[in-house]
């Protein structure tokens, strides 16, 4: 008799784990890309989040995003470091915006629009946290144009990539 309790993962558990693994890989690859300015990042993991959002809804996307932030920061050695809290804040604010936008039909607002909105929510939340905690000076907001331009460009690009992946692998 074994005392080990076997918890049989459901199909959804396996699916979430697969997506989370892809998102974690994307954020680790990204961590290796040098950035001219902390905060300006492509946000490749968000492509995965967008795909999960489109296919399986907001709850699954939120799971993948949370798993990505926690496991990704553990692997990068950033868990509970400032970068972790910035990533977590960005994930929470962008999930909140994506959740609010779920009330709109995908016919009208596709992956690209949602990606742009999430990108701005991401950097917006991070800017507020950084201003309150890490750089308590309004000079931080002088960088807002750079951050916003990056959010716009990467938001559109990630949205287009997610859209293509969704259509190429349509069920």
């Amino acid at each position, binding site marked *: 008799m074994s005392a080990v309790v076997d918890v049989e993962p459901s199909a959804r558990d396996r699916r979430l784990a697969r997506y989370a693994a892809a998102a974690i890989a994307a954020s680790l690859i990204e961590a290796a890309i040098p950035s001219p300015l902390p905060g300006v990042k492509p946000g490749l993991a968000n492509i995965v989040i967008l795909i999960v959002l489109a296919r399986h809804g907001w709850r699954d996307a939120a799971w993948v995003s949370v798993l990505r932030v926690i496991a990704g920061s553990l692997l990068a050695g950033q868990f509970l470091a400032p970068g972790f809290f910035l990533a977590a804040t960005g994930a929470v604010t962008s999930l909140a915006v994506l959740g609010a936008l779920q009330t709109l039909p995908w016919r009208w607002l596709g992956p690209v629009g949602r990606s742009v909105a999430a990108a701005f929510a991401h950097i917006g939340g991070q800017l507020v946290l950084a201003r309150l905690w890490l750089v308590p000076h309004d000079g931080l907001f002088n960088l807002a144009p750079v951050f916003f331009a990056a959010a716009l460009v990467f938001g559109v690009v990630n949205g*287009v990539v997610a859209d293509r992946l969704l259509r190429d692998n349509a069920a």
Partner: protein
Amino acid sequence: MTRLRPGDWLMIAAGLAATVATTAAQWGRAAPTLAQVRLDGRIVAEIPLNGTHRVAIAGALAAQGETVIEVEPGRARVAADPGPRQYCVHQGWLTRAGAVAVCAPSHISLQLAGPDSAQDTVAF
């Protein structure tokens, strides 16, 4: 090809507007008119940026020397400071409203203020 939907265009337009608005706010910032010198957080000198002035202030390191603030039309700098690392001196000329040079060891800061300064004070 990705076919953008109406909401996508709206989001892109909103993002573009936010980027342009913040950029314009940067460029459109009013020229500074006043150099404010603080010692321990209290203003000890206010110098209009319309002429050439040199002001020496005795800060917390007065035994090693005074902090010298230099003002020229439209700009100001810390020309000399007894602090060991000289950060505020190396910062050079300040030209934008809201810009600050802090000589922490001397407890002195130099800040440029515009007609509509974005902030009243800075606390550290």
